[in-house]
């Protein structure tokens, strides 16, 4: 990313918001004039009106905290096991040659479909949800860690050698810091995967936080409420990832 594109660009932001507003207005018009059935898609104005109701009546704060806790737990596990996994693959070439391809394949596999298996193992509990999020999101963290370590420029490693670094020093003082930006990308990807899967499984097994709320509202055929809850989830994830990006930037100055 170039430095220029990093700064707050007011125009780009305004255009982005503008596109969204135009999209909503077009939807509103299509529905109001009867081109789209309002019993399939409720008009945006109605969705906006039901926000308050969903937030007040459905105990959304509690549900949000539940989902957030699940995400956080999965995130911590992801970071620990993903990074360790990547380091091991980097350290042992045989392991890398043996596993890299199918880890990459696993990254695109719809792990969510295995939820019955997880239900059997972990029961209808938060752990089922956490474990599915964790398993689904592990591959990108492993792969990005491996990529960061392998892509460390040779000359930097050679600088270390020329200063007679031990393998341990070489790892902690050169390889790891050099790979850190890429590892962060992996963790951010992993958290995105985890959040998607966690809300999805909550919806599927009708248990836990925001996903279950969407399920409930949909079963009550409260369409405006359903869409309001979906918007809320999207809003939460946008805020979540914007803050992740902030943290990431703050942790690696002037890269």
């Amino acid at each position: 990313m170039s430095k220029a594109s990093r700064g707050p660009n007011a125009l780009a932001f305004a255009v982005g918001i503008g596109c969204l507003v135009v999209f909503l207005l077009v939807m509103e018009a299509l529905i109001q004039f009867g081109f789209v059935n309002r019993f399939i898609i409720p008009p945006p104005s109605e969705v906006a009106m039901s926000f308050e109701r969903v937030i007040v009546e459905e105990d959304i704060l509690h549900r949000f905290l539940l989902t957030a806790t699940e995400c956080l737990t999965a995130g911590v596990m992801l970071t620990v096991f993903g990074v360790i996994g990547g380091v091991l693959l980097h350290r042992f070439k045989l392991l890398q040659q043996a596993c890299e391809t199918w880890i990459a394949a696993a990254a695109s596999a719809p792990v969510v479909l295995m939820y019955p298996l997880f239900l059997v193992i972990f029961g209808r509990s938060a752990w089922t949800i956490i474990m599915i999020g964790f398993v689904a999101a592990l591959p990108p963290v492993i792969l990005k860690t491996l990529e960061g370590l392998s892509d460390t420029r040779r000359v930097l490693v050679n600088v270390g050698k020329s200063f007679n670094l031990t393998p341990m020093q070489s790892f902690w003082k050169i390889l790891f810091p050099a790979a850190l930006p890429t590892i962060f990308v992996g963790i951010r990807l992993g958290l995105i995967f985890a959040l998607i899967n966690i809300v999805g499984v909550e919806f599927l097994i009708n248990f836990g936080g925001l996903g279950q709320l969407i399920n409930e509202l949909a079963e009550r055929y409260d369409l405006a409420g359903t869409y309001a809850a979906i918007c809320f989830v999207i809003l939460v994830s946008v805020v979540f990832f914007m803050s992740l990006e902030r943290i990431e930037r703050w942790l690696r100055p002037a890269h």
Partner: protein
Amino acid sequence: MSASSATAPRSASPPQPGEAILDVDHLHVAFQTPDGPVIAVEDVSLTVRKGEFLSIIGPSGCGKSTVFNVVGGLLTEHEGRVSVAGETIVGPHPSIGMVFQEESTFPWRTVIDNVAFPLELTGMPKAQRLERARHFIEMVGLQGFERRYPGELSGGMRQRVSLARTLASEPKILLMDEPFAALDEQTRLLLGDKVLQIQQELQQTTLLITHNITEAVQMSDRILVMTYRPGKAKRIVEIDLPRPRTSEIVGSEAFGRYVAQIWADLREEASRGLTDDETSRNRGSAS
């Protein structure tokens, strides 16, 4: 801490033949490639004396970096013997400090933390190592940039950071592989002055690898000219120009004579390199 930084500057007369500190004896390096072995260096012998500035010059691809890697202990598969003060090199030697051809600063460390890196490894207390680092940052003329990250500096400044970092480890022998190759001519000349000044100040034994004749003549006591593939030692030229030198010497008549002499040697090799390149390219496009 080495004594070299404490000794008084030697007289400006041409260097007395000091004791040999680095010895390369019948070095021979071949790389295994899918098309069979490639001989990169063939029978190169050289001796660097204490306090001396020796350059190796040769056309691109003649094996200069290979010699650099062998002397630095990064490439151990070779024939012949390389020794520092009588001790055979089997890996990176603590007496040798390397400055690499590519950009090699650590982007995640500030300038001062980059330069303090080798001191950190020795376990020197923080306050002391930052003070030492400041000394070397000043020496390369980067005071005021201590807290900047390499990403905020120009290429020439980054190369000076690398130089300061290597100097901070106070190597007995400074080994540099085309440290200015990626820089523009003016920056290169000014940095050359800086290196000369530092070399004079520290009485630093230096082995510089370059393909730039002006640079080599400006700085060196002796120049080893290498042939194009396989890289052999073609000739050693003694540069008998008064010291201290600056880039102003470039205009003098004696300087011109040395440049012409080395160019005559190199032209033959460089043109061999060119025709070699062309034939292989033609062969490549024909197939």
